[in-house]
């Protein structure tokens, strides 16, 4: 009996390892391949017989991308838009999330539901009016306009995700602080926000990644070098016939580097936040 039990455990352990390793290869493989492509010379990319491991390495693609294309500008624009999005979410979303987490008031459930439902609105349905309105108020093709547009789907996400982190700080802490001599706002900044600090960072990173990655709004709402972000710029590099694979790969690698680094740093807290936000929603 015990024989078969430990035997079946061994089988399942082996299957689990096999599945996980296979999945990990499938998940990371494309990234590795893209990286290899980015450091290959042109002849090794466009070739009759597949070159798996390049014999010659080159950073030519990166140099070319950085010096001969508008990529530096694109990345700068993306950085500006991303920072602005995070700041807007941080200033308006943190207090909203705190309010939802801490207080019971008339209309709370309905409002929270509203913050959830706006995520269901089709992007296209909002993009068209946003285009018209932004054109009227002169925010079309501006980094600030794009950042504001991003808050339409990222602010509700931010509020919900952060609420999960606030919820895990006991309510009694504020009561204690208020009796100890703090005002409500004092308790919020002195006690609760410092406790939820990791969650706040993770939530900001999540929003930052989403803003950094966004393509559709950027495509519609930016029209020139002045505010175009990197996903749009990278896509524009795709010519009709000859694809500049080396440069595309290099651009891709540069753009996902910050994402992967940030993800690696805060992944555990962020994963907890995404799950909590989605589960309660």
């Amino acid at each position, binding site marked *: 009996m015990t024989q078969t039990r430990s035997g079946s455990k061994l089988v399942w352990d082996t299957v689990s390892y096999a599945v996980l390793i296979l999945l990990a290869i499938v*998940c990371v493989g494309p990234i590795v391949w893209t990286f290899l492509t980015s450091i290959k010379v042109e002849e090794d990319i466009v070739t009759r017989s597949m070159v798996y491991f390049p014999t010659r390495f080159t950073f030519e693609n990166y140099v070319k991308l950085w010096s001969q294309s508008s990529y530096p500008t694109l990345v700068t624009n993306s950085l500006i838009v991303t920072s602005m999005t995070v700041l807007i979410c941080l200033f308006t979303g943190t207090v909203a999330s705190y309010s939802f987490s801490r207080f019971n008031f008339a209309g709370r459930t309905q409002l929270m539901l509203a913050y959830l439902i706006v995520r269901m609105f*089709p992007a296209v*349905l909002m993009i*068209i009016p946003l285009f018209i309105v932004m054109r009227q108020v002169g925010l079309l093709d501006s980094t600030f306009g794009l950042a504001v547009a991003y808050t339409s789907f990222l602010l509700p996400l931010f509020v919900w995700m952060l609420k999960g982190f606030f919820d895990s700080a006991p309510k009694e802490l504020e009561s204690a602080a208020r009796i100890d001599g703090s005002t409500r706002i004092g308790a919020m900044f002195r006690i609760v926000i410092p406790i939820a600090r990791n969650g706040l960072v993770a939530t900001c990173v999540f929003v930052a990644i989403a803003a950094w990655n966004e*393509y559709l709004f950027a495509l519609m709402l930016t029209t020139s070098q002045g505010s175009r972000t990197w996903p749009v710029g990278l896509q524009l590099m795709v010519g009709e016939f000859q694809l500049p694979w080396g440069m595309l790969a290099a651009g891709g690698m540069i753009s996902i580097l910050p994402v992967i680094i940030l993800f690696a740093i805060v992944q555990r807290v962020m994963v907890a936040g995404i799950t909590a936000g989605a589960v309660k929603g």
Partner: protein
Amino acid sequence: MSRVLYTAANPPARSAWEAINPMRMIGELSETRYWMYLLLLPSALLITAVVLYPTLYGIQLSFREMRLNRPALGTDWVLFKHYARMLADPIFWTALRNTAVWVTSSIALEFTVGLIAALALNRNLPGTKVLAVLILVPYFLPNVVAGHMWALMLDPRLGVINDLLVKTGLLTGYKAWFADPSTAMAAAIIVEAWHSFPFFTLLIMAGLKGIPTDLYKAADIDGAGPFAQLRLITLPMLKTIIAAAVILRVIGLVNSPDLLLILTNGGPGRATQVLSLYAFQTAYKDFNFGYAGALSVVMFILLMGFAWAYIRLSKVNQD
């Protein structure tokens, strides 16, 4: 014990500045009963401005003529003209069908792979923490990069996947996956599933942690095998979380045309044309905002209907 400290009856001396100190005034404000609403105000205003107003504007646009590239047509009310046109528009029906295929196949694949990964990770075998992180990476990658990575690997002339398939004998020659109407959708679904299955893994893992291990011990003693345990304990216990994940993914898949826009742009022909992409192209390429608005309104209504029905169904099943 120390005697008299500063108390309410014996406060520290306050300078004149204290009376008008803005920090103190905000502090006082925070003690009022309107404080929770004040905290909500900035975000509520912003969401009203960038979500509610545009949405309502978009809905009313769907009843109007608006073509940016043909201003001569004016912006008059046309009532249900766009909706009537939609019914007679073969592309709309193709896109609707493709959307159904795109959404259901992607979710089926994402859910299956996501569940398997979560079950394997939940065994907490040594060394799998690192694998968990690697498996989650695709979810955080930009659509643009994910699309290009796969376009590169599936390229008809230099794609590594073609090469591997030919070398292992599964394929006789390189295939143009995205150029062939019979494989374009399937290829796009695989890319989408690769990109998004970690979302299911994430949520299912969280759900698995919430299932008491005693249940499995009891099932072991009762003689239930691993598949019976999956069917009778794991899946029923995960019902709510799976329902939430499916709804969120359906919303995502229906609403965002990003990946298809990058990979195929709806082609070849209309083989991968979905509703969101059609609506976006109508707005972005044709500047026909009225018709694009009508298309997105229909999408929105379909989504709402789906979400409502799905929540109802999963609730009924729970009882």
